[in-house]
């Protein structure tokens, strides 16, 4: 980036007219993919985008450019303003955007989510992590597949209402799949704000330990006790964030917690919060509207406590609703706000083996895949397992299973949760589409009753 992000945002804001928010996002990232124990694709990205949000009489418009010269910035500002004004002129009545948020009274506290060493993005670090995984895979008679990625994202927001905030955060993720020649696979991943934490050898070892060479069994459809590894829990929580805690869906009567706030929706052991400064999460100081992030309890002792808001959804909700610092986009994402720093408090179990101990016949799931909502209001999801699914028999994780399809409600699973492991950890799918926005969930493994299996692969 040629100029510091906040300086660029302030300079861009000078081109704005009326209510304007300028968001500058600079991404520097390195992603190294590997398959069959060889490097396959390495991608380095260095790009900065400047987005103008203009609001006229409640109508919003954005214009984005990655050209940083004054002429390009002026043009983007003009496009955004012209569209918002045209919208207001065409409608002749106010739009649904309540206006730019008022700046925080006290300076936004830094998130401490940046690691300078990670920001160096040295390709040698990725190369050595891959080599460590490849070497151990060969010793174990397996092949390694996966990804190593690290990034630095700088975000600055300046608004005509006086907001002026900036932060730089880093993230790093490594996923390893160990696979034997017969196609049996195991999985392990690690997410952190520090690339130095990505240990290719350790991850390969964990993944390889889940490769079971025995012929997998097929489990018929039905309801089973289940132990879900943290990665599987994280995916369910991610969907819950969008389907249950989305303040816009809630205001429109579509959300899963409509008429259920203040009531029991999960087991008493379930305590879920959005905690943007939790030590092991990917920390953030403010949201896409520059509103400071603060911890927000969502489920306390099993009771639904709150939904999250951006300024637009808070206006739609009316009453006392205010932004809780969960905007995904300037002006509010059309699909609504979601929590991006979910933390599920752990329980008392030492590990997945202790969780499995009371189960006579059940399932141990290490990873879920291609999960999508079936009925949003019910948080009913479907998806499959992959890279390590096992039968639990007589309290022990035993035979490998063919991958299963589940169709079950995320909220119902939390209601049927019996126990959780003691040490939550940060997990992430590392779905890094569009401009990099790394996020994950801090969660333990858990045991729940009645996991609904609706099919299996052949």
């Amino acid at each position, binding site marked *: 980036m040629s100029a510091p992000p906040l300086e660029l945002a302030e300079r861009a804001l000078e081109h704005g007219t009326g209510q304007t928010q300028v968001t500058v996002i600079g991404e520097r*990232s390195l992603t190294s993919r590997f*398959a069959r124990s*060889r*490097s*396959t*694709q*390495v*991608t*380095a*990205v*260095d*790009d*900065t985008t400047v987005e103008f949000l203009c609001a006229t009489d409640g109508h919003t*418009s*954005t*214009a*984005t450019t*990655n*050209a*940083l010269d004054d002429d390009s910035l002026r043009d983007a500002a003009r496009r955004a303003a012209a*569209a918002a004004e*045209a919208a207001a002129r*065409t409608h002749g009545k106010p*739009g*649904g955007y309540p206006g730019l948020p008022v700046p925080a009274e006290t300076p936004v506290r830094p998130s401490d989510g940046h690691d300078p060493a990670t920001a160096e993005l040295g*390709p040698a670090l990725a*190369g050595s992590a*891959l080599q460590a995984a*490849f070497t151990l895979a060969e010793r174990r008679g397996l092949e390694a*597949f*996966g*990804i190593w*990625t690290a990034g630095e994202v700088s975000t600055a927001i300046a608004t005509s209402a006086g907001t002026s905030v900036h932060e730089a955060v880093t993230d790093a993720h490594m*996923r390893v*799949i160990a696979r034997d020649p017969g196609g049996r*696979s195991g999985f392990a991943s690690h997410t952190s704000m520090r690339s130095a934490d990505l240990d290719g050898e350790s991850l390969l070892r964990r993944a390889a330990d889940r490769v079971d060479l025995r012929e997998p069994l097929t489990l018929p459809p039905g309801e089973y006790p289940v132990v879900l590894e943290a990665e599987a829990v994280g995916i369910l929580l991610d969907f819950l964030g969008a389907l249950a805690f989305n303040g816009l869906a809630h205001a429109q*009567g*579509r959300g899963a917690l409509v008429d259920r706030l203040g009531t029991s929706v999960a087991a008493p052991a379930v305590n879920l919060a959005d905690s943007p400064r939790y030590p092991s999460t990917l920390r953030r100081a403010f949201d896409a509207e520059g509103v400071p992030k603060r911890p927000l309890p969502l489920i306390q002792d099993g009771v639904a406590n709150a939904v999250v808001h951006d300024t637009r959804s808070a206006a739609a909700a009316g009453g006392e609703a205010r932004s809780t610092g969960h905007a995904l986009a300037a*002006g509010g994402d059309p699909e609504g706000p979601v929590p991006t720093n979910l933390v599920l408090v752990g329980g008392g179990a030492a590990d997945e083996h202790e969780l499995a101990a009371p189960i006579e016949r059940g399932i141990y799931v290490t990873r879920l*895949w*291609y*999960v*999508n*909502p079936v*009925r949003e*209001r019910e948080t*009913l999801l*479907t998806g*499959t397992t*992959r890279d390590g699914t096992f039968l639990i028999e007589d309290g022990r994780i035993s035979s490998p299973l063919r991958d299963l*399809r589940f*169709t079950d409600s995320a909220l119902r699973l939390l209601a049927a949760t019996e126990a959780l492991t003691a040490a939550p950890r940060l997990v992430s799918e*590392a779905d*890094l*589409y569009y401009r*990099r926005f790394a996020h994950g969930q801090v969660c333990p493994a858990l045991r729940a009753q009645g996991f609904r299996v*609706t099919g*299996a*692969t*052949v």
Partner: protein
Amino acid sequence: MARHTENVLVRDGRLERIDDDRSDGVGVRVRSGSAWGFAATRDLTRAGLRQALARAMAIAEAQPASAAYPLAPLQALARGHWQGPCDVDPFSISLADKLALLMAADEGMRGDPRIVRREVHCQARREQSAFASTDGAACSQSFVHCGGGIGAVAVDGEEVQMRSFPVAHGGAVAAAGWEHLLGLELVGQAPRVAEEACALLTAPACPSGRSTIVLHDEQVALQIHESIGHALELDRMLLFEASYAGTSWVTPADLGTLRYGSPALNITADATIAGGLGSFGWDDEGVQATRTPLVVEGQLRAALADRASAAMIGLSHSGGCARADGFARQPIVRMTNVSLEAGDAGSMADLIADTDEGLYLETNHSWSIDDRRLHFQFGTEVAREIRGGELGRLYRNPSYAGITPQFWGSLDAVCSADAWHLWGLTNCGKGEPGQVARVSHGAAAARFRDVEVGVA
């Protein structure tokens, strides 16, 4: 590569948002020894490009050593310019005119208090790109995409139902201009969409069991995408996507021998179809657009390949399927326009009349398939009973599931060419960092026997 995208969203009678995004940049892909490196930059100066080249080289050289693999040779060097079809430039239409159309469609869905959300949207994209390689290629191309759609969400107590037109998940988009959006006739369809959303609130749930099903061609398109298109990506077959997108139940050894489905199944990948989101002059490795039969009368013939994957299994040339999502991503194996060829079952009405008993399902709502593209489960917004060759009552929350080769093996009728349509799909995710591809699928309504329904 330069990309300009505009999205306009009207919600509940108000302009919710207009997004106008522009980006320009260059991606440099190099091979050093056996390793690849790629660096993207928005700095278009000579110094900026040199820096990106140096970065790509440094990255490639930092990779663990491994045996080199070849690239399939080019049959011809990419030279010249290709331009996609567009009669009326959507960027030339004034915002007032766009809003007038969208607001009229919104108005058509207004009225019933059970409708809690009405949405009308349109989008346009223009891309201009130039490609050059040390092989000697030097070409440029440009295209315009345009489309949109409408949707209504109805709520009554605990029940939430949605109807969309022509499709959910981003609307119907084609490689065409504003004329495509006008042709969708969103305004005329709006009242029906709202009425059906409300009617679904009190409709009985989709029955469970096994049934004959007739799929609307839009759902057939998604079925092709998930259970044929992705399964026939050669990089997946070769395990190179095992980390994220997954592998395939099909292996390279199956090419030419595997029975993928019934004799009614004919699948073609065609990057030359007018209007297809997967159409181009050359792919992002400079390979000329081509038409490739993938499945002929149920028999697997070919896969979707780029230069590297083609060489790995000894093919003489690439399948022309290397595509990148913007300047900051490198090309990977992608679908072009993977289509089900028309059959001889006549119109949709003919096919329904020829079906004694079953379910007719329309408009995708949910989708999921395993990482080998074998076990799938789809939900649609609406189903109707078929009894005695006629459409009957409405069902809510319909779903069906199956195993890919069994399901396509149960295909016994495909509607004729007059009922065949090209459906654009704008949200196909693959790759790391993530890439969103735009593809199209030609399809006609089709009938499948003995399918598991009502699974969710």
